[in-house]
């Protein structure tokens, strides 16, 4: 008997049918993967399964009992959301066991010692190398992600674990670590519902695969018999060519960005050049300093030493206004924190960069603004109910398109895309690859692509710079290098490699 079952679930929001007659059964000790594009209804389904939303029709059945008659059943489900939501100022062990009633600490008085002793076991199981006494804010993003999953496992009653895109901020190696843990949980008899965009993960991990498209379940299969083309076709409703190369094919022009011996928070002595019309990839593990380098160049983080020139002119640091005015655009990995203005409409989110074109006599012309925005919405295929919709209600992919779209109106020379496809579905991903390519080829932009996905880097970049622990560990031509060479440079510096040899 299925441990968790969704029967004929339907859910509607104003203007959108989010789910229509969705059936799903999670068997005991099974890893069931749910895949689908952004807006396919995965998150809505999960929120119904954990009791956050009530379905408009259908019911959720947990251990054979309908959740509408017995809501206590939801306590058997542990849910790990995609975003980090830990208490940053509390310690690792406190984070693990809050709420204490659920994790078995029913006494009124708790000592730190009790918590720490209990924490060690979980830290070991989840391979988090940290002191239980450490504040969570001092942990790396990937350790926080694992801690969040460990926290879900401290729930005494849990039989079902739901993971929503758990690997978005993990590098390949850390992802492997997570998979081992998930398999251990499975052999301990837990059932796991795994939501992901990454098909490699789904096939590596899953026992069965369900595909959602436009709020409907369009397919289910055992992972052992499913094929990647079948999944992609079910997700998109059409076959897409994903093997295609997206490297710009024009000969690179002048040097637009020349960085010399730059040092800042978390990295030192980094030098590289970027030419017009090329995509330069940056590879490295989380914490290698990729984002920090870009944010320092952009002026968001303080520079410690070094210099740079942009289009031949000496660069001014620590001033994002100057950077943007001089055509240096940085699109942050943290779309929610650094990209969108959540409560503003799609229109105002895009319109914020259009003022040079839309302002007449000091005031914004609503008419001109609407025209340009409608054009951007069409050109970048942004899906929204209307441009007055608050951007927080758009899917991640559509938010990203809006951010890229508005940036193009600043007429950039250098565009830094930090994890531009994080949490974005395959079709939109592909769209963004082609967009970067065409911007490099047609607008002659110099583009820097920072990514944790090696496939993405190899597919899009002309050259790849590797970083290890805040230092440059290599530079490769994408055409002539191998995956292995880059991976090796990502996990050890030249000296260490020489020492090993």
């Amino acid at each position, binding site marked *: 008997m299925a441990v968790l079952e969704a029967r004929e679930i339907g859910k509607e929001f104003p203007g959108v049918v989010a789910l229509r007659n969705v059936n799903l059964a999670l068997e005991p000790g099974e890893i069931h993967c749910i895949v689908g594009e952004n807006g396919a209804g995965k998150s809505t389904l999960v929120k119904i399964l954990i009791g956050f*939303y009530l379905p408009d029709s259908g019911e959720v059945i947990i251990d054979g009992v309908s959740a509408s008659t017995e809501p206590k059943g939801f306590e058997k489900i542990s849910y790990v959301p995609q975003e980090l939501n830990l208490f940053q100022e509390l310690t690792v062990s406190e984070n693990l066991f809050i709420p204490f009633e659920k994790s078995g600490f029913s006494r009124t008085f708790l000592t730190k010692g009790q918590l720490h002793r209990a924490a060690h076991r979980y830290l070991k199981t989840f391979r988090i190398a940290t002191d239980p006494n450490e504040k969570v804010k001092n942990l790396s993003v990937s350790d926080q992600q694992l801690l969040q999953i460990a926290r879900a496992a401290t729930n005494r009653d849990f039989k079902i674990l739901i993971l929503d895109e758990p690997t978005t901020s993990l590098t390949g190696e850390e992802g492997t670590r997570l998979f081992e843990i998930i398999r251990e949980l499975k052999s301990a008899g837990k059932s796991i519902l795994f939501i992901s965009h990454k098909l490699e993960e789904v096939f590596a991990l899953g026992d069965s695969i369900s595909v959602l498209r436009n709020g409907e379940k369009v397919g289910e299969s055992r992972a052992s018999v499913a094929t990647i083309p079948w999944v992609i076709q079910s997700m998109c409703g059409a076959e897409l060519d994903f093997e295609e190369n997206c490297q710009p094919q024009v000969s690179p022009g002048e040097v637009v960005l020349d960085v010399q011996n730059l040092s800042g928070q978390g990295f030192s002595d980094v030098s590289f050049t970027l030419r017009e019309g090329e995509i330069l990839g940056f590879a490295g593990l989380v914490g290698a300093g990729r984002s920090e380098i870009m944010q320092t160049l952009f002026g968001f983080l303080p520079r410690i030493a070094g210099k740079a020139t942009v289009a031949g002119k000496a660069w001014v640091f620590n001033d994002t206004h100057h*950077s943007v005015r001089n055509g240096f655009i940085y699109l942050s990995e943290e779309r929610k924190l650094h990209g969108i203005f959540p*409560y503003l409409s799609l229109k105002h989110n895009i319109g*914020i960069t259009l003022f040079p074109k839309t302002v007449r006599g000091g*005031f914004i012309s609503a008419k001109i603004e609407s025209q340009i925005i409608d054009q951007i919405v069409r050109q970048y295929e942004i899906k929204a109910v*209307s441009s007055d919709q608050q951007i927080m209600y758009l899917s991640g992919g559509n938010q990203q398109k809006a951010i890229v779209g508005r940036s193009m109106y600043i007429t950039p020379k250098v565009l830094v895309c930090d994890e531009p496809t994080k949490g974005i579905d395959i079709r939109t991903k592909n769209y963004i690859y082609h967009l970067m390519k065409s911007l490099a080829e047609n607008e002659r932009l110099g583009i820097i692509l920072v990514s944790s996905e090696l496939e993405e880097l190899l597919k899009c970049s002309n050259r790849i710079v590797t970083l290890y622990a805040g230092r440059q560990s290599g530079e490769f031509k994408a055409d002539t290098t191998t995956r292995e060479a880059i991976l090796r440079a990502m996990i050890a510096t030249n000296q260490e490699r020489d020492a090993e040899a």
Partner: protein
Amino acid sequence: MQKPDRKSISPAFRLLFGNQLSGIVLALLLIILVASLFSPYFLTPYNISITIRSLAFVGLVSLGQALLLILGDLDLSVGSIAGLCGVIGGKLMVDFHVDPFLSFALALVCGAGCGFLNGLIINALNLNALVVTIGMAGVYGGINLVITTGKAIIGIPQAIRFLGTGDLFGLPFPFVVLVLMLILVYALTMFTPFGRYMYAIGNSRDAAKMLGIRVARIRVICFMLACLLASLAGMLMVARLGSSQPSIGETWVLTSIAAPVIGGIATTGGIGNPAGAIVGAAIIGVIENIIVLFGVSPYWQTVVSGAIVVIAVSLDAVSRWLVRRKKL
């Protein structure tokens, strides 16, 4: 892109019900209706005139505070600044015999200066606006007492008394000033890039910085504007009373935050309409007026205006909950 058949709805209907302000405007009208049914004195010209005259002072301060709330900031020293600038203006006119209108203008410059100082300290050292402005409220209030030793400056020249006591187009002069300022602030926030940047900063300071918006500069300018409006309220009050009372502005701070919040401006920043601050101030003003008309002890006024704030915030939370239940 589909637009739900908006066009079939009449513009008047949309103005009434489709606007984010419509809820509290209706609430204000309802309160006015109830008040006029229960008290024969409420809708008399005299009562209306004193109600909107006193609304003007609190309204100006609330309007300034609304700018800061939209940015995600706030200033708790606006009351002290109003008092201090009133005293400086009065001192210049009475003791130094400076031209009254010039003194008035200089007092406003002082107000903007105080705002500049607040904004600068908060920005340069990246401090919490709440804590800094509580401290600065003490500083400005203290300077006020040092100058006046607690005694009012009397003998404000007749030439400028009309700014506080006079009428223009049959409306109290301070109220006309308020309407004028509302129009300016509304245009600034709604139709200019500066205003859009304000909302952007209120939504996410980091995202604004990432787009190259000059966050620090805009914040300082808004602190200056807010404190300028506060000093304007202070000087108009001096003109109305005919003396610089050191206590001017003492009770304005709570209302200046309550009014925008009632008017739908979130304390967390990034949402709301500055006109809401005036409607919110009007609701508080009318209710205070009702208390007086009904002969309730004036000591109850603070209880009531405090309660209104809590109720308004609760209603806001309930409506947001309703929206979320539908939308997400």
